[in-house]
């Protein structure tokens, strides 16, 4: 069985500094995997390497096969046929991730239009607009018409992240990469977005690569996790196994810390 995403011996470095070293993992279609790491662990670097969008001064070695296509060393023109088709990304900061000067409806319309152009020679009139409204509805935004006509700065942070998710969904990707998608949000908003993401991934059958520093958050949406520290993979396993019996001291520290805050809260939660 060939995986949807297969990363082999990935090494990312810049100016003599190694940011990610010899990383290997794979994600099958429909599978949900988490990358856990603190700042400087190289988790976001890895995600950007998968999309082939790392800046030119950062060099990548190893192999990343995405949907049967090698990413490392492939020119931008060919990668464009992968981005937005095989993968779509939701970023951490919903305010800056959206174009401040373009109305939300139009921004979601861009990936929709690209997909329609790819799928069929001729899109019926109004198809893009209809689908934009559908997408806004799908990410549970109230009054889709009003939101579509608003600029990003006119809606709340949580709503902006829903818009970003709608844009990713518009691509109907095989793999959704979510890079700390709730870190910039309030706890109550985070809970809503996590629930939404979880539901959408299950409903559409997309694979998910979820990147976060927050163990309990990762545990809510993925089945399998990998822990990164200073660009090195420490261990990999199912959420249940790893959080119950961490093999590595560092993982143990993280799990203990998360459990300590959890226990302080008592058992009132889920």
């Amino acid at each position, binding site marked *: 069985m060939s995986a949807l995403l297969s990363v082999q011996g990935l090494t990312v470095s*810049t*100016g003599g500094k190694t*940011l990610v070293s010899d990383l290997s993992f794979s994600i099958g279609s429909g599978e949900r995997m988490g990358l856990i790491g603190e*700042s*400087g662990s*190289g988790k*976001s*670097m890895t995600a*950007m390497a998968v999309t082939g969008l790392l*800046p030119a*001064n*950062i060099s990548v070695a190893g192999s990343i096969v995405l949907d049967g296509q090698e990413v490392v060393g492939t020119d931008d023109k060919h990668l464009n046929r992968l981005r937005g088709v095989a993968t779509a990304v939701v970023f*951490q900061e919903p305010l800056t991730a959206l174009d401040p000067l373009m109305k939300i409806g139009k921004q979601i319309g861009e990936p929709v239009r690209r997909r329609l152009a790819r799928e069929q020679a001729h899109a019926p009139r109004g198809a893009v607009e209809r689908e934009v409204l559908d997408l806004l509805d799908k990410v549970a935004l109230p009054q889709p018409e009003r939101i579509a006509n608003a600029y990003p700065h006119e809606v709340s942070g949580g709503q902006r992240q829903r818009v970003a998710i709608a844009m990713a969904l518009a691509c109907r990707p095989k793999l959704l990469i979510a890079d*700390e998608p709730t870190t910039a949000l309030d706890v109550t908003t985070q809970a809503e977005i996590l629930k939404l993401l979880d539901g959408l991934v299950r409903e559409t059958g997309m694979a998910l690569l979820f990147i976060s520093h927050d163990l309990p958050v990762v545990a809510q949406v993925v089945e399998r996790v990998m822990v990164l520290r200073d660009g090195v993979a420490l261990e990999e396993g199912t959420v249940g196994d790893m959080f119950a019996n961490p093999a590595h001291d560092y993982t143990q520290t993280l799990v203990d810390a998360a459990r300590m805050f959890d226990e302080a809260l008592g058992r009132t939660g889920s």
Partner: protein
Amino acid sequence: MTALDLSADRPSRRHSLALSIGLALVGLNVAVAILTLFWTPYDPLNASGGRLEAPSLLHWVGTDRLGRDYLTQIMIGARTALIVGTGAVAIGASIGVTLGILAAFATRLLDDVMAATLDILIAFPTLLLAMLVVAASDSASLWSAILALGLAISAIVARLTRILAKRVLRQDYIIASRTSGTSWPGVVVRHVLPNIWPTLSVNFALQFGLAVIAEASLSYLGLGAPPPNASWGRLLQEAQGTVYTAPVGAIAPGIALVALVIGMNLLADGLRDVGDPTRGRSR
């Protein structure tokens, strides 16, 4: 997140090179300016050779149409440029920084008024203002030009200082300083000035260059320092008439001017990074 930290990795070698070149160019200018106080190759006011002589071993850059040594006049021009640049920036910096700091601390209404006034003042063209002041002063003297340019610079510096100071005032270490019991003047001296200085000093260098160019323009237009004070602008104006026969005269003072202005900019850029303990880190 991680990507941001990487962009701060700049080769520092480029900056030390800029610093050396800047230091060399400005240093040469200063040295020449000081030298002219004691010694010049020839008498700047009297003919020392034939008219419009081509460059030779005796007259390295030739002579002007009155037979005066051209190099001597360019050297004295260096002194004029230095005086104008330094004087204008000194006036501009002292008025501008004071006003800018006051505006940054002022109540919202007063700050708005000051900001709007500065915007208006900046909209007024420096060169026109300088022309007017020079015309208004009894005789076209160097000092009226310096004053006019200094005033124009002060508006620009004030606006920049205000923006920079406000940015610093938003930092948590300012609140920490205040809650440590530090008075507002103390906050300015301890935290605000040291933190806005690197950007300000680069701007001063830029303004220095612009002042030198503006003075040259005034002299070129015939509104500059009167004849005994040689100015590169006036040299160029005189040389323009003889450009057919003596093209060197129209080139040499310009090169001297551009070298000084670029040297100043490079020097400031280099110094900013050398004196900055946070260099190499962005945040």
